[in-house]
């Protein structure tokens, strides 16, 4: 089966979405699927990407939750892809993984609903989505392997997804969060923001600056 993975993060490196797809690739390969990874960081859909996508059996998107929805550049690309897909014969199943900076994976529910609505417009089949909370744990240079520590729930969800792709399963959306206490995630996040501010020559209290 030909599977196309799309990283919808605008970040050139160290994105949580990229990390999730890196985890997923070997799971798909173990199911004997050929997969190719595309990164969509801008608002214009690459013509070659569009051709590749039109010929695949499954599309798997991974992107960050931006203001309760799909990042605007990815939305642009989806609209262009809808145009392409609407005019061809295809049998494509679509899955999406949305990572939230918030702790609760269900905060991705509206972004996943939009992906499902996109599938109807593009006349492709919606599989299901995964809303991952506490996605900040995966960003940066974090090297925690899949199925270990905070990535245990993600491991289970990605294994289920790989099987679902193989069997072309559609299901209810799955909402998970990292195996990590909410309070520690909050405190760790705040520590990270202060560290970044100091690295930029600011004081911690500057984070609260009003304009």
């Amino acid at each position, binding site marked *: 089966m030909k599977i196309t993975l799309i990283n919808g993060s605008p970040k050139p490196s160290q994105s949580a979405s990229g990390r999730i797809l890196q985890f997923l690739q070997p799971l798909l390969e173990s199911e004997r699927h050929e997969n190719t990874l595309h990164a969509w960081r801008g608002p214009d859909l690459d013509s070659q990407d569009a051709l590749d996508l039109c010929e695949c059996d499954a599309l798997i998107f991974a992107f960050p939750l*931006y203001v309760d929805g799909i990042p605007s550049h990815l*939305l642009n690309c989806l609209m262009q892809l809808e145009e392409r897909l609407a005019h061809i014969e295809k049998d494509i199943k679509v899955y999406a993984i949305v990572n939230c900076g918030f702790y609760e994976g269900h905060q991705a529910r509206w972004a996943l609903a939009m992906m499902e*609505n996109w599938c109807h417009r593009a006349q492709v089949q919606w599989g299901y989505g995964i809303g991952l909370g506490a996605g900040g744990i995966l960003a940066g240079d974090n090297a925690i392997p899949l199925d270990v520590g905070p990535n245990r729930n993600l491991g289970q969800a990605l294994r289920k997804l790989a099987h679902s792709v193989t069997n072309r399963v559609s299901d209810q959306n799955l909402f998970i969060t990292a195996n990590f206490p909410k309070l520690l995630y909050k405190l760790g996040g705040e520590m990270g923001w202060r560290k970044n501010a100091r690295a930029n020559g600011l004081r911690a209290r500057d984070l609260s600056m009003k*304009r």
Partner: protein
Amino acid sequence: MRVVIHDLKDEDSAGKVIEHLGDVHVIADDGTIHRCLGCFGCWTKTPGVCVIRDAYGDMGALFSKCSEVFIISKCCYGGFSPFVKNVLDRSISYVHPYFVNKDGEMHHKRRYKNHVRLQVSFYGETTEQERETAKGVAQSIATNLWWDLAGVSFGDDIADIRGAIS
């Protein structure tokens, strides 16, 4: 201050759609908006403003000075159009990077204390499922920005939404 964010083109007679709102600050598509880079510089490099210094770099500060926000957007899959979403993506400096719990959910802490009433008007042909999604999206955005959602309306075309916001 009242702010209108819209994606209407000149040929859509944007002025006529919003003229009844009176004195408003209008955020419209001049074709130059840069996409959000996901760098979080608006929180940790230049807190409160976006590091991209185009015409849309001070959305957070603008929101801090307003009491009403009107959004007029084509409904795309149950969400906003790419331009309107881009404006919102570039606006996260309005909130603080720290987290707080609100009704059992994690949200960003407020940076400002002003009260804002949000009205959203979607236009374009929509399905029932897209309208349900759009209502959920509008409420979630209001919750995350600490605003009050005053209403969400839908119109098949631009003529239908004239007067839907007031």
